[in-house]
């Protein structure tokens, strides 16, 4: 199978994720879309590692996973806190910092 197809798949997943971030209001779904984008880039990294015949891309993919894990920990905590205080998980509602 042509490894370039993995790249096409990664692009499609990334665009889906990006559109999801832009159009969805629910913070949890937005969060999942971000995860989707991160994993799309992971897929691209791994595909490039295969294409280029070295493991640099695979190493970076691990780093991205670590970052994603940390992000989930903090991001979920933030979302849960906001939900507790404001009874809503919509990303459009928390605009108190706006002047």
């Amino acid at each position, binding site marked *: 199978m042509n490894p370039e197809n993995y790249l096409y798949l990664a692009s499609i997943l990334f665009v889906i994720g990006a559109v999801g971030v*832009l159009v969805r209001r629910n913070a949890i779904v937005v969060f999942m879309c971000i995860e989707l984008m991160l994993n799309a880039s992971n897929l691209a990294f791994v595909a490039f590692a295969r294409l280029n015949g070295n493991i640099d891309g695979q190493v970076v993919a691990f780093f991205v996973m670590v970052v994603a894990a940390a992000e989930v920990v903090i991001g979920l905590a933030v979302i849960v806190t906001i939900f507790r205080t404001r009874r809503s998980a919509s990303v459009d509602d928390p605009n108190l910092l*706006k*002047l």
Partner: protein
Amino acid sequence: MNAAAIAQLSEGGEQVISEATGIFGLTWLLIALPLLGAAVLLLGGRRTNGFGPLFATTLVGLAFLLGMVQFVQMVGEPAAGRSFVQSLFTWAPIGDFSVDVGFQLDPLSMAFVLLVTFVGGLVHVYSLGYMADDPDRRRFFGYLNLFVASMLLLVLASNYVLVYVGWEGVGLASYLLIGFWNAKAEYATAAKKAFVMNRVGDIGMSLAIMLMVTTFGTTAFSGVFSGVEEASSGVVLAIGLLLLLAATGKSAQLPLQAWLGDAMAGPTPVSALIHAATMVTAGVYLIVRSNPIFDLSDGARLAVVLVGVLTLLFGAFVGTAKDDIKKALAASTMSQIGYMILAAGLGPAGYAFAIFHLLTHGFFKAGLFLGAGSVMHGMDDEVNMRRYGGLRKAMPLTFITFFVGYLAIIGIPPFAGFFSKDKIIEAALADNVWLGAAAILGAGITAFYMSRVVFMTFFGERRWADDAHPHESPRSMTIPMVLLGIGSVVLGYVLYSGSRIVLWLEPVVGPEEEHELAIPVLAITAIIIAVTLVGVAVAYSMYLRKPVPVQAPLGTVLTRAARQDFYQDAFNESVFMRPGQYLTRFLVFFDNRVVDGFVNGSAALIGGGSARLRRWQTGFVRSYALSMLAGAVLVVGILVLVRL
């Protein structure tokens, strides 16, 4: 230094200045005494209400006694050794340049010390009676003492900076005293006017001092006068003209004369002391003191002469039209100081006579003013001479002293003014026939307006208001008048006989220059007396033979102009005040609109800009995400394009 050494040193006519010792070492006390009085009265507050006035008077009396002792001591010294300097401390040492607080007591300052403390003392005594009912008289006496101290500082200082201190001090005292009854708005305005016009003159003084510092590196009399001989003629001329400007301000000479008439708003003793006898003569003192400067510059002397002769005629003309007794006397003061300035401008031929006339004028004009004050005191502060008339029976003592002063000022022999004015006219004639003619004309007009004052006040029928009860003033007021009257009688002859005043001042102003006269002195004297008598006769026919109308008649164009001081106020207003106001208004406009507009505008620009920028912060997380995505796409796009 012993007498023989001084005699030896002074062979060439040089003046020897020695360190002040003995009684002369107490010169500082002359100033300190009235200054102490001013401090106690002005800082002591209401506690000093009771003893204050008498305390102030005593201090000036003590200063006079000290001056008298010094005078007697000075007379005992050889003529060339009568100058003493005393340096108290260095006031402002700046590198090579330094200003000392030091005093110079010489025949010229001695004459002023005696005049200021004697007339000042008498005016203090007079004020005890005149101001007896004023609730604020403590403040009045405090100011008077401040004036005496400043005036003494002015005449005793040994450098120009210290002269300037005294110069400003008398200006301040004059301001405070003109506006003493400052509850009346017009009096306060008169005070302000006097102060502002004086300041214009003072600028001349400060510029002259700056010029001295840059040219000679010192402001001490000795340094300036020895350095002036090597200075370029342009600098000497400039210093001379600047000093003249200072003198015109303080001495109410053209073109800065306009304040003196309004200065009569002050209490009458103030008019007598400050605006007749002493402060206004400070300009004459300044010019005579700076004689080495004026000796070297014909141009400066010419300017001085012109100022003097113009003012003496101007003041005389104005004096003929005034109905306010104090303003008539003020115009006369202006005119008489014009004589002194004229004499001072004649150079070595006239310095001594300028001081001579200054001294006699100090006596008779102070006497006249105190007489006018006494009349006002008896007439419920009425100043309009058209409401007087026939007062000689109601106030005999005032009349006699006033009449003596009158004879002195118009120059009837043997009264004081005769000797002093005659000598000035002679010197003017010897210098230039036209100058002499103008001075003689001035003498005639003086006789006219002073006769007018005397006739309208003391002779003729009574024109008093119905509720007026003229009465003689208390003794504290009449005694000073009598003393000044005696001075007006004898002082002229005493100083004139044997050329006493000329010889006395010779160490300071140099020997009198002999002048050639085309016609004998006796003939000149006869002409002057004849012109004077003509003036008296004209006044007699106008104001004594005919009844004086209570309402002032409209008069000719000239009379109306003279009543308005020849429209000098209108002139000053339209030429200096209005353009000045327009300038300040323009500057305010410029400041408000252009400068503030620039500053406020840039602030508004930044504020408005940031308000627009703020709109970008919508608070919608998804719009931020969109802009981040757009930015990322942009960056990637650019990278791709560049790579291609």
